C-alpha cells in the first residue's frame, strides 16, 4: 500500500496509474489520491477542522474549496458537533472518521484505505463499510483488510496476496465458487463436544471429505 501511494519506493517492480509509471513520476497519482494509512496519524492537539485544513493544503486545495469540502465531509462523517474539539479527545471510531474525511478531502479518483476497520467495534465497522460502499460508486477504492466480512460487504473485485505474491484476482462470487468442494462444516452438539476428545472430532471431520483439513 505504501508503494502504491508512493510513500515508499519499491526495490523492484513498478506501479502504473493511467499508463504513467508512478515510481518515476509520483505526482501522476498523488494529485488524484486519497489515503487512509493503517496507523492513521494525526496531530492530537489540533482540532478536526484544523487537521482537515492542514491535509487540504497539502493536497493543494485553495481556501474556498477546502472550507466547502471540509464542511461537507464533517457532515458526511457525522463530526460536525466536534469540529472544534481536539482530536486527542476523540474515541477510536471518531478518529477513524477523521481519517476518512481527510482521505476524501480532495475528492480523489483513487482512494486507498489500509486496514480501516481494525480496532472498531462491530457497529462502527458496519457504518464504516456503508460509508465506503457509498463513496465507491464513482471512484476506485482500494481496500486492504484481513477481515473477510468487510470484503464480502464492499468489494466487487478481490486480489488475494500471500507473502507478497498475487494468488488470485477475481470477483468475490468467483472466489467462493473456486473454493466449492474444499470447505467443510461439521456440527458438534455440546454434549458430544464434552464427551468426545478433540482428536476424535478432528478424525470425524477428516473422514467427512477426502481433502478436508483442520486448522490448529
Amino acid at each position, binding site marked *: 500500500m505504501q508503494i502504491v501511494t508512493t510513500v515508499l*519506493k519499491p526495490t523492484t517492480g513498478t506501479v502504473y496509474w493511467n499508463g504513467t509509471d508512478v515510481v518515476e513520476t509520483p505526482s501522476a497519482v498523488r494529485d488524484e489520491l486519497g489515503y487512509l494509512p493503517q496507523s492513521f496519524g*494525526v*496531530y492530537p*492537539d489540533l482540532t478536526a477542522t484544523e487537521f482537515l485544513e492542514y491535509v487540504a493544503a497539502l*493536497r493543494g486545495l485553495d*481556501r474556498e474549496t477546502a472550507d466547502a469540502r471540509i464542511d461537507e465531509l464533517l457532515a458526511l462523517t457525522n463530526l460536525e458537533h466536534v469540529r472544534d474539539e481536539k482530536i486527542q479527545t476523540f474515541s477510536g471510531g471518531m478518529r477513524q472518521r477523521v481519517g476518512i474525511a*481527510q482521505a476524501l478531502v480532495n475528492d480523489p479518483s483513487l482512494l486507498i484505505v489500509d486496514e480501516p476497520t481494525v480496532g472498531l467495534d462491530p457497529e462502527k465497522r458496519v457504518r464504516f463499510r456503508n460509508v465506503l460502499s457509498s463513496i465507491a460508486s464513482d471512484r476506485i477504492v482500494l481496500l486492504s483488510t484481513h477481515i473477510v466480512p468487510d470484503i464480502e460487504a464492499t468489494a466487487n473485485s478481490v486480489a488475494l496476496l500471500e507473502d507478497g505474491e498475487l494468488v488470485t484476482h477475481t470477483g468475490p462470487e468467483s472466489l467462493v465458487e473456486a473454493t466449492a468442494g474444499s470447505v467443510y462444516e461439521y456440527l458438534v452438539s455440546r454434549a458430544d463436544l464434552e464427551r468426545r476428545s478433540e482428536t476424535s472430532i478432528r478424525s470425524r471431520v477428516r473422514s467427512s471429505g477426502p481433502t478436508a483439513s483442520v486448522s490448529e
Partner: protein
Amino acid sequence: MDTERVRVRRVFHVARADFYQRLRSRQVLVVLAVIASLGYLVNVGTVELFYLDSSNGETVQYTGEPTLAYIGLTAGMTGASVLLVLGYYLLAGSLERDRTHDVDRLAASTGVATRTVLVGKWVSHVGYVAVVLGTLGVAAVINHHVHGTGTTDPVWILGAVFLLGLPVGCLVAGVTLLFHTDYCNDLPAQPPPGSRLCRK
C-alpha cells in the same frame, strides 16, 4: 490555483499545524517559565553580567545601572545565549513528532515537496523562538517597571530582545532542521527509518 500560491499555502499550513501542536502541549509552559525565570535572575542581578576593564593593569568590573538599555541588552543577551546553547534541544523533535504520530506518512502521499515541509517547519520554529523571546521580553519589561530606573518603554526592551535573539533563533532553527534531514540528499531506494519525508 497557481503553483506559487499552492506552495505558500502549504508552507503556512505546515507551519501552523506544527506551531499549534507544539504550543498546545504542557511542556511549553515549563520552557517559558524557565526562560522567564532566567531573565528575571539576570535582570535582578542574581546572575550577573558585567564589563571587565583591565587597561590600567587592574581588573575592574563594571555592572550597568538597570536602565532601559541595560535591561533590554541583558534580556536580549540572555535570550540569544539560551537559544545558542539550548536552542537545538528546544526546537528539535518537530520532524520526530511527525514520525511518532505517523503524520509524515500522510504527508508523503501528497504532492508536497520536502523543501516545502522544511520551510514550513522552519517558520514554525521561528514562531516558537518568537514566543520564547516574547516571554523573555515581557518578563524584562515587568522587571524594569519594578526594579529599573527611568520610564519603562516596552518597545525599546522588546526591540533589543528581538534584535539580539531573533537572528540567533533563526539560525539555530535552520541548523536544527539541517541536522535532522541530512540524509535527504541521497535517498536510497528503501529509505532508512524516519526518512519518509525525504523526497526529491
